[in-house]
């Protein structure tokens, strides 16, 4: 259970996780509802559009199929009717021929008795052709009515003439035979056949008309289909255009929102970084102000009290002065500690390592935690990197002391391949980093991320914790160090700092931990 509260005295840097909650706040439920409605409407339109289009296409197809079916049916029935009527006409015609032949045969026959058989046959033929006429008459085309009536009366007359001949005696037959044959039978027959031909022609005409009608219907079907296709095509194009437009609009909105969210995330991070910087600047200023102004004021009070004491005042005054001196000394001590906790002046005056070593000593004094600091840095770091490493170590050490029940911590800082590598290893109780992510931990991570670094926690319950940070150095241009000593340190000193570290380490932290530096 470490990494929960951060250093108590220090105000926390703004966490982006907290800040990240705020942009959602203007997303009121009402606005969300309206947006949902707006998002639903095109959905309904799309479903209706596509559904309607599909329905129209299906209906058109079904209609066309039904129509085609009835066309084919009409066509076959037309053909059948034509053929049936043709056959009837043919029957009538053949009956007429046959009857002519029979009459001729009977006229040529020497015997009356033989004619008797022909009469019966003839009667059959007459009945047959009358039946045929009857059936033909049942479905008569209007223009056929006149020739058909003509034909019918002619046939009637013809049969009557034939009947008359049959009643003839042998003599009559012999006498009128030739005349009847050439003047009556043949012309009548020819005329009847002509009428039949005319009717046939009419019948054919009817067939052609039927065909033409069918063709007409087919043409209308075609037209209908074309219209239908045009309509569906138009609908489809409209729908497609609408869909494309809408999708593009949505896409645009998505892009815009993505850009907005990226931008707002970036500006949040920027804000957070700036807040951290501002907070750090403020701490530095406050620390310096406390140390230099308030502290010196106490110091002056102390001196003045001493001066008064030198005047050999009355015992009563002396005791008051002693008390003032005590209060001032106390206040100075308090102010000094407060200033150090806010931001240790060594960080600005001497650099990272002295500040880390102070922190290590300080936490050792306070909690008994043994902290070793080892450093391998060729020179001073940019301001932000220095602060970042210092604050991360400070937070980690506080966690070690407060939550991890650690007894020893090893802090290592080194520079390698253009980056600063920091590790803080403790022998404490450890924790499960996947489950526990306290504010302190988030704050460290945030600081590291601002500088483009990588933050890694390796811990398991009972196994201690290893915190690793890698900060790229090239990312940020070097900023001049701000010293609370009111002057910039002599730049020539950097080499000397190294030897000082070794010497210092030999006395304070063990030469082994510094031999690398």
């Amino acid at each position: 259970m470490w990494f929960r509260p951060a250093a108590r005295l220090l105000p926390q840097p703004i966490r982006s996780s907290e800040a990240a909650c705020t942009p959602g706040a203007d997303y009121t439920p009402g606005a969300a509802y309206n947006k949902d409605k707006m998002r639903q409407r095109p959905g309904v339109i799309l479903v209706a559009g596509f559904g309607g289009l599909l329905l129209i296409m299906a209906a058109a197809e079904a209609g066309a199929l039904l129509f085609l079916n009835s066309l084919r049916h009409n066509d076959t029935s037309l053909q059948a009717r034509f053929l049936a009527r043709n056959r009837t006409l043919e029957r009538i015609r053949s009956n007429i021929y046959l009857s002519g032949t029979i009459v001729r045969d009977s006229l040529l026959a020497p015997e009356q008795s033989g004619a008797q058989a022909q009469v019966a046959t003839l009667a059959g033929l007459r009945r047959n052709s009358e039946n045929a006429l009857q059936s033909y008459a049942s479905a008569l085309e209007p223009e056929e009515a006149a020739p058909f009536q003509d034909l019918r009366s002619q046939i009637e007359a013809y049969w009557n003439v034939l009947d008359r001949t049959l009643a003839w005696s042998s003599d009559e037959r012999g006498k009128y035979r030739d005349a009847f044959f050439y003047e009556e039978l043949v012309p009548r027959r020819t005329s009847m056949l002509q009428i039949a031909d005319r009717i046939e022609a009419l019948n054919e005409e009817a067939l052609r008309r039927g065909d033409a009608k069918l063709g007409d219907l087919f043409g209308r079907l075609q037209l209908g289909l074309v219209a239908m296709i045009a309509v569906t095509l138009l609908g489809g194009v409209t729908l497609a255009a609408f869909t494309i437009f809408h999708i593009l609009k949505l896409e645009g909105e998505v892009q815009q929102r993505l850009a907005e969210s990226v931008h707002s995330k970036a500006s949040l991070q920027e804000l957070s970084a700036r807040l951290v910087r501002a907070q750090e600047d403020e701490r530095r200023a406050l620390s310096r102000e406390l140390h230099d102004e308030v502290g010196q004021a106490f110091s002056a009070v102390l001196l003045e009290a001493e001066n008064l004491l030198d005047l050999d005042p009355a015992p009563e005054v002396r005791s008051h002065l002693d008390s003032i001196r005590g209060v001032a000394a106390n206040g100075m001590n308090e102010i000094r500690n407060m200033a150090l906790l806010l931001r240790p002046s060594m960080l600005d005056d001497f650099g990272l390592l002295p500040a880390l070593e102070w922190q290590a000593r300080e936490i050792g004094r306070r909690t008994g935690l043994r902290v070793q600091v080892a450093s391998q840095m060729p020179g001073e770091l940019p301001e932000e990197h220095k602060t970042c490493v210092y604050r991360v170590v400070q937070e980690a050490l506080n966690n070690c002391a407060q939550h991890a029940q650690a007894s020893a911590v090893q802090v290592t800082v080194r520079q390698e391949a253009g980056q600063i590598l920091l590790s803080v290893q403790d022998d404490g109780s450890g924790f499960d980093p996947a489950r526990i992510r306290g504010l302190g931990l988030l704050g460290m991570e945030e600081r590291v991320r601002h500088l483009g670094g990588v933050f890694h926690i390796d811990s398991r319950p009972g196994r201690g914790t290893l915190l690793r940070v890698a900060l790229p150095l090239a990312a940020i241009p070097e900023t001049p160090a701000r010293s609370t000593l009111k002057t910039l340190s002599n730049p020539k000193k950097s080499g000397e700092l190294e030897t000082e570290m070794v010497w210092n380490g030999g006395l304070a932290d063990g030469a082994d931990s510094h031999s690398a530096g």
Partner: protein
Amino acid sequence: MAQIRILLADDHNILRDGMRLLLERQPGFVVVGEAADGRETLQLAQDQHPDVVVMDIAMPNMNGIEATRRIVEKHPNMGVVILSMHHDESYIIRSLKAGARGYLLKDAVKAELILAIEAVVDGRSFFSPQVSRILQEDYFQALGRKNADDSYQLLTDREREILQMIAEGKTNKEVANTLNLSLYTVDTHRTHILQKLNLHSVPELILYAVRKGIIS
């Protein structure tokens, strides 16, 4: 007895005024100049040749540590007493390395300041008891951490004697006279001491002595 000439370097007027008042009431003490920043201090040290510079660390233009380094470099006999609010060893050690021979905290009482000035004029070192304690605490803490033997045990009695005298600010010649040894022998002892203690300079040696409680 000749007067002790003192230069005050602090950027707070009220403090300088208070100190001047306090010091000048002391017989034999005279404040020959007041400087409000590091550069002014260098200039006044050059002009006034004070015996002792009482110096604050946090000053504009040039900080007290750097000013100390330059003054000691130029005027090896000029004593520098740091009077600072800083009580961390990083400041103390850097001041001593720069050549300061006294380090007082600003909550030091007047007696300490006077003792320090007198000691430094005598060529000795002086630290606030608090400062000595801080250095010793850190040292023992480090020793405890390392669980290491104290290298002081490596020194012979003679070497310990010489260590103390050097730490008190005595020159090789003074040591040689006091112990009735040749200058060359003292120098050899001194080299051995530095080697055994893994130290590299007299300021380091003084610091070591303070930490060990050999001098205060």
